[in-house]
């Protein structure tokens, strides 16, 4: 395993797309130390900011408050990346495989446009999780993002496939222009599912909806039981017991389509 300990919090954002298991897997100790990073406009080396231990491994551990370190694990395809502390923006953007685990919080754009792999965030996350970059048509196309805390604006914006599960609540515009995939949230603020054409948003509480969503009855979909079983192994509980309650199904967004669905859990009155 390779361990990188942050010496001190960088004064301006540090762009570190080299910190990925794919890059370090075949490198010797001194080659890892010499990998390039960008502190503002200045190119510097990994060992300017990190104490490096270990070599040639696709298991990478980053220690310290890396809340200002951007692009960690960009485009990674394999291996394991563990961050003990916080992670900055664009964590695991464009990733295709492997696992990222963060014990603290992550910034905006975590898992943006990812197409495979797993990201687990122990704390809160910022906005635009699994989203499409500005001007891009499609967000995440596969993979899984699990967040223990809450998240910000535009979670799952334009996502096409894959799963995002968030224990806490999210801010406005969750599932904005969603085209597919599954977004599971503990709760949400306004405008959830705005302009969604397809896909499923599951909320574990009742949420305010746009006027362009139509109530379509209650249900306990079978596919959610599969999600509940799978996510249950990761510590996420998704209610699916018909004796405890039912999901209110809303379809929309009628401004663009009627194939998107929002499921809001409602326990039976007891």
């Amino acid at each position, binding site marked *: 395993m390779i361990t990188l300990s942050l010496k001190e919090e960088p*004064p301006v954002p540090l762009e570190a797309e080299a910190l990925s298991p794919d890059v370090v897997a075949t490198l010797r100790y001194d080659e890892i130390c010499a990998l390039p990073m960008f502190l503002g406009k200045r190119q510097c080396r990994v060992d300017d900011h990190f104490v490096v231990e270990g070599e040639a491994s696709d298991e990478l551990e980053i220690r310290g408050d890396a809340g*200002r370190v951007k692009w960690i694990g960009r485009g990674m395809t394999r291996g394991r990346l563990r961050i003990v502390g916080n992670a900055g923006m664009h964590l695991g953007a464009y990733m295709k495989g492997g696992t990222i685990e963060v014990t603290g919080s992550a910034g*905006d754009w975590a898992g943006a446009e990812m197409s495979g792999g797993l990201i687990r965030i122990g704390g809160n996350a910022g906005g635009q999780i699994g989203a499409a970059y500005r001007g891009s048509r499609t967000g995440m196309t596969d993979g899984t993002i699990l967040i223990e805390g809450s998240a910000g604006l535009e979670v799952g914006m334009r996502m096409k496939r894959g799963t995002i599960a968030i224990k806490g609540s999210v801010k406005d515009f969750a599932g904005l222009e969603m085209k597919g995939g599954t977004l599971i949230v503990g709760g949400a603020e*306004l*405008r959830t599912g*705005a302009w969604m054409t397809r896909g499923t948003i599951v909320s574990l509480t009742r949420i305010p909806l746009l*006027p*362009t969503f139509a109530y379509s009855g209650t249900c306990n979909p079978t596919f959610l039981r599969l999600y509940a079983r799978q996510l249950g192994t990761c510590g996420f509980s998704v209610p699916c017991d018909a004796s405890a309650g039912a999901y209110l199904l809303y379809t929309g*967004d009628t*401004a663009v389509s009627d194939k998107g669905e929002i499921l809001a859990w409602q326990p039976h009155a007891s």
Partner: protein
Amino acid sequence: MGGKVTCTLGEVKNRADLIIYWGGNPADCHPLHFSRYTLNAKGKHVPQGRKGRTMVLVDVRETPSVRFSDIFLQVRPGKDFEVVTTLRALLKNRPVDEARVAETGLTLEQLQNLVDRMKNARFGVLFFGMGLTMTRGKHMNSAAVLTLVAELNAFTKFVSMPMRGHGNVTGADVVMRWTTGFPFGVNLSRGYPRFNPGEFSTIDVLVRGDNDAALILGADPGATMPQPAIDHLARIPTIVLDPKLTHTSRLARVHITTATTGISAPGTAYRMDEIPLPLKPILKSPYPTDEEVIRRIYEKVKVKPAWSPAAYAKVPCA
């Protein structure tokens, strides 16, 4: 996705028969807008002037602009996105939830009436102001309006235009666009332009404290930005170029007084429809122009040796 369907104010004057102002108060903030370009001007295809045009005003409160309007729609604060999305659904004869429409402060009949007017207009124009773009939803409110207008072009000619504020803000956007390809929120630190509002836009950078210096040209963020952003400007070396002392100059390390463009310095300003207009000075100023100050700073910077990784190896960064 949207894109802006737009035109010049000359076209609005000569053609528009439906004029919608959304989240703005042009009677107070753009006092010549009505008489020169929109309501009262007689146009080639609107020879009757005011009688040939319908004006709709959408706002959260009654402003002095209300008495100029034919229809006033009072929407609840922060419900603009809901209203525009409902309009997009009604445009396609899709169902909407009447009870949730009523939560916006407007009834379904009012919105249906507006959609019918929009579809039946010969040439419609939607002007949107800060009441829309700076309230909850922000850029998505603008995106909603731009998309609605783009979709209306399936029925008739319809355009939109932001009601830009003081100074030459349109000019800043236009020049950024043809130099970098993006209108704002551009980062050049890696040697090429990258665009990501939320990450590189000024307020977000300042609030997070991501920059260690600031050069402020013809703006007064000290008066308008949120407190954490102002605190950060006071913490770092801030340089202000402005003809007058501003709130920002008071917290800056350096203030350079410059000549006022349009009064004592020549230049170009962009009208809100992105038409460049030359400015001719009528007075002489003892102060240098913004352009001259920037050029002199740039000449000094150019003399410094180029930064490179090799040079950096000898002098570690602080």
